[in-house]
């Protein structure tokens, strides 16, 4: 059997026999009926852990790790603050074995715990952030990162640094500009598509016309070629040397006769 198998078996056995564990039961019994005390203990433990982490983050050199830890702390804070209303409700519940004063003390305890949680530093600037926070909390209704019930915390919770505020605004501006640019492109594409469709139809219309023109021109060209050939034949025939010589001889004879007559008549 490997180590892992051993460990799993041990866990299973422990779970089975947990109910026989006296110490554990005693602990559970203490806060068994008292949901408030249980929850209170849990929240307090978490708040302690968060405070310790905050101290660590304050001493952290690397900015990235500091930011990451602060984010973690903020998340924990918001979670704890969410639990607080439940705690409040439980605080007013009557539990057996508790005196009236203790009941009242419980709600005080709850509010004290709330202050403690909020006091945990989470890396956001104090004073200036408060002014910026109230403006920032209304600017982004859509996306929420950490908290869902932040109306209770007031505007101080959304303490933003000036840097992140500016960054967020720039991001918004750039996104709007991109949207505008994309709109312009979309319109241009629409026009192009329409023109392309019309051109397509026009070409469809003109293609058979071009074919007709092609045919007609071909026919005319072949007719012309024929005619030219025939003309050439005729002209060559006319200009053949035999006819030429005949013409010259006959011309000479006529001139001779004319000269003879001229001489006779003179």
């Amino acid at each position, binding site marked *: 059997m490997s180590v892992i198998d051993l460990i799993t078996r041990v866990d299973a056995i422990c779970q089975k026999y947990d109910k026989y564990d006296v110490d554990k039961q005693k602990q559970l019994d203490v806060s068994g009926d008292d949901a408030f005390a249980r929850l209170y203990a849990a929240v307090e433990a978490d708040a302690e852990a968060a405070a310790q982490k905050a101290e660590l983050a304050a001493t952290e050199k690397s900015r990235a790790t500091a930011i990451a830890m602060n984010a973690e702390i903020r998340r924990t804070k918001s979670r704890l603050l969410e639990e607080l209303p439940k705690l409040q409700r439980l605080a007013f519940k009557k539990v057996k074995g508790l005196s009236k004063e203790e009941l009242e003390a419980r709600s005080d305890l709850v509010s004290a715990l709330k202050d403690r949680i909020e006091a945990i530093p989470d890396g956001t600037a104090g004073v200036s952030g408060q002014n910026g926070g109230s403006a920032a909390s209304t600017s982004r209704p859509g996306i929420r990162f950490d908290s869902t019930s932040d109306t209770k915390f007031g505007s101080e919770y959304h303490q933003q640094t000036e840097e992140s505020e500016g960054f967020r605004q720039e991001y918004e501006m750039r996104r709007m500009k991109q949207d505008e640019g994309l709109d312009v492109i979309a*319109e241009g594409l*629409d*026009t192009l598509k*329409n023109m392309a*469709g*019309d051109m*397509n*139809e026009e070409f*469809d*219309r003109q293609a058979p016309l071009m074919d007709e023109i092609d045919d007609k021109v071909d026919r005319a060209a072949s007719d012309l070629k024929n005619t030219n050939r025939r003309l050439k034949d005729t002209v060559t025939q006319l200009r053949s040397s035999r006819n030429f010589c005949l013409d010259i001889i006959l011309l000479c004879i006529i001139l001779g006769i004319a000269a003879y007559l001229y001489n006779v008549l003179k």
Partner: protein
Amino acid sequence: MASSDPDKLMLKADKQTKLSLTRWSADWRSATALYEQAAIAYRLAKNYEKAKEAFEKASKGQEMLSSPWDAAKHMESAGSLAKELRNWSEVADFYRRASELYIECGRSQPASDALTKGARVLEEVVPEEAIKLYTDACAILEEDGKEQMAFDLYRAATSVYIKLEKFTDAAATLLRWGLAADKCNATNSQCKAYLSAIIVYLYLHDSTQAEKCYNDCSQIDAFLRSDQNRCATKLLSAYAEGDVEEIKHIAQSSTITHLDHVIIRLARKLPTGDVAALENNASKEQEEPLDENDLT
């Protein structure tokens, strides 16, 4: 070739065609030649009346010589001269006759071209006649299977109808245009024609007709898949909701901007009348049939 006084030419030609005791058959060949010369001479002299007559006679001569092509050409010239003389009924007659002669030659394109020329001349003055000429020209082309050429004619006919404010006729013409486009698979023009028809009906503030038209057109696959269909759906739903802003916004959209400019003008004027009233009527109509069902 005497380039003498065209009157003399005309007289000579007439003499050659008139039958009398000495002349048993008219000599159309020489007569036609003389008529043509006279007509050209008259036209140069800007004597349109005489030129027109000369062209008419020349055309008749060519007919007698059984060359309908030349006859048709002369008729067209006569028609253009009649236009100068502002003799509108004659213009129509001449161009119709020319078109008939072209059909005799078996050439449908020039026939419809002749009718188109006549229609264009008469657009301003006698629009009804112009429309008749346009529709006849479209019919000629469609018979010959050349629907592609008919698009321009449909466009012209539609714009004349809209100018005359006969919107139902305009919409009918647009639907016929869509049909012609369908036959030659010109889906872009077809969808544009259907969208224009819907807009015309909406301009008439007749949303029931528009919806009927839209339903008819939706049965055609090509229209259903097109941009124009989306635009039409948006427009009709905006009308159903009575949202004036939305209607105006859609009228500015690029799909409508690509239609014919006459239609764009109509679309920019939408919505005409009270859209909310339309909406009430529509909902009331929907309630009544339900009541009848309850009673029965």
